[in-house]
């Protein structure tokens, strides 16, 4: 077998020349201290948190230009969803941002419920909030572990994954799955929480704040972490807004925009919680804001489990939600509904809806267009990672390449969400 792979690859190389890189002279006409070097980072690189590829132009150790190249895990989920019934599309959209699967499912179900004008029972809303906030903590724990690893704190990774494991066990208890749970349904949630879930959840919420205290004790007074993060790669609030950046990155720059407070959905207005904001918008603030968010999420979960209303956990609209299993044995009507829902699915009135929620990374908007059939005519996720990634270049230009790694970690991109 021939091993000459350069022949085929050269076409590819040529096509990449269309990427305009930084000019070889300095813009201000001054002398370059070093010759410019173009460095390819990724797509396989431990510090890119996925298959992200960066073409970096360096002057010595200083980043002069940066182009993110994405698409390596593009799986066409938006296209696939167009080919499935609404309830069958939930598992595929969940797999976009694989650290925020409850959020993906909720954004899609929320958009569908808006189209259907479907009322969600209060117990379902509270159960959704419990799982959404658990998911937020889980996502922040993965971020904290991996980004601490990036700046050299190895043991944080194990501690964070230990606590993440408890959350995944809770997910497993309520839905049978640890990831991509498909717990949130159109009209409510799949099942009520089982016996024993509440006790385990309370154990977790009692323990988590002290665990975060420990992480703070490890990192917040750590000389290395402070030097690597404080004052590094800041970006002003106006710049972030121009770039469409939302979530913890925007809040770190002092803008308290959080959709849970601004436009409360899913009865978030019932809960008492605060929005952590930063002042400088540097890497340290991005770091501190996310850590502080874990405490607030724990507070929301505690309030939700204390005030969990009695009642059904899914809408009793039989045209949308499956009838309870026991009814199938006695009721002909329930059997017909079950059959229709499982084979054809429910039909959704024609229209277009954009449903934004606050995911761990910012505004996650789901756009659903219905043409009146039982399959969505278009599903689009406005994924926060995809938009936030554009801020990498303005954040890191003029800083050291080592700080680029730290900034990328603080940006918390999830490539499954970026490429979809």
């Amino acid at each position, binding site marked *: 077998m021939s091993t000459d*792979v350069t*022949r085929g*690859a050269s076409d590819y190389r040529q096509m990449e020349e*269309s990427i305009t890189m930084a000019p070889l002279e300095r813009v201000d006409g001054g002398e370059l201290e070093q010759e410019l070097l173009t460095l390819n980072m990724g797509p396989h690189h431990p510090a890119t948190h996925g298959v992200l590829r960066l073409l970096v132009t360096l002057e010595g150790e200083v980043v002069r230009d940066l182009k993110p190249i994405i*698409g390596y895990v593009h799986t066409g989920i938006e296209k696939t969803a167009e080919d499935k019934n609404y309830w069958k599309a939930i598992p595929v959209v969940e797999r976009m941002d694989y650290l925020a699967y409850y959020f993906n499912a909720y954004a899609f179900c929320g958009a569908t419920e808006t189209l259907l004008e479907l009322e969600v029972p209060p117990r379902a809303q509270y159960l959704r909030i419990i799982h959404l906030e658990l998911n937020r903590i889980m996502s922040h724990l993965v971020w904290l572990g991996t980004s601490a690893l990036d700046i050299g704190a190895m043991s944080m990774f194990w501690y964070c994954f230990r606590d993440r494991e408890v959350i995944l066990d809770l997910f497993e208890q309520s839905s049978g799955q640890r990831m991509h749970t498909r717990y949130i349904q159109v009209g409510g949630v799949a099942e009520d929480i089982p016996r024993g879930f509440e006790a385990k959840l309370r154990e977790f919420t009692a323990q988590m704040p002290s665990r975060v205290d420990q992480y703070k004790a490890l990192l917040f007074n750590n000389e290395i972490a402070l030097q690597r993060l404080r004052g590094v790669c800041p970006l002003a609030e106006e710049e972030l807004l121009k770039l469409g*950046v939302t979530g913890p990155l925007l809040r770190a720059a002092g803008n308290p925009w959080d959709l849970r407070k601004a436009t409360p959905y899913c009865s978030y207005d019932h809960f008492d919680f605060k929005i952590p904001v930063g002042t400088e918008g540097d890497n340290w603030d991005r770091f501190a804001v996310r850590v502080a968010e874990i405490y607030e999420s724990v507070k929301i979960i505690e309030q939700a489990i204390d005030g969990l209303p009695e009642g059904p956990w899914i809408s009793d609209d039989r045209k949308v939600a499956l009838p309870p299993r026991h009814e199938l044995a006695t009721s002909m009507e329930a059997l017909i509904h079950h059959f229709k829902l499982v084979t054809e699915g429910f039909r959704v009135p024609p229209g277009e809806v954009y449903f934004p929620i606050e995911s761990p990374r910012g505004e996650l908007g789901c756009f659903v267009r219905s043409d009146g059939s039982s399959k969505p005519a278009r599903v689009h996720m*406005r994924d926060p990672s995809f*938009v936030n990634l554009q801020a990498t270049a303005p954040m890191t230009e003029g800083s050291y390449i080592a700080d680029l790694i730290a900034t990328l970690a603080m940006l918390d991109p999830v490539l499954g969400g970026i490429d979809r």
Partner: protein
Amino acid sequence: MPDAVGLELLAQELREADADAVLGTSYFRDKATVEVAPSSIVQTLEWLRAKGYNALMSVHGVDYYPEEPRLGVHYELLDMSSVDRLTVKLRVPLDNPHVGSVTPNWPTANHQEREVYDMFGVIFDGHPDPRRILMPEDYEGYPQRRDFPVGGEPVLFTIDESEGTAYTQ
């Protein structure tokens, strides 16, 4: 959200500023939408920015197959100070899918317009970097269009390149 009356007032003001801009309005599920002509999208968004809609949260494409004009581009605007959202929509036909790029004024649209181009083939005139973003650069066709088939996709493996068959089924 501007309510149904507020939307009509806004559209009226927009018509006074630019007579050909507004093609229609709709109010659906408590959400206001303005449909504008593709040629006036850049000015319209600038005008709405002056009205307080200072954040562009999302740009996404839609294929309205089999309706004509087929391709649609949606712009989700947000006013953070008065917590107000507005959708601006436009439609372009397949044979002339040209829309003015809003990236010079709204840097956030950069990746998103590239995605709309990549998936639907809408050409954004004046975009600083009009390349595909998710699909490979040599990809043919626009996969998110409704008449683009699912499956049967040739997969590129580097190992096959050396044998002269760059693509295998």
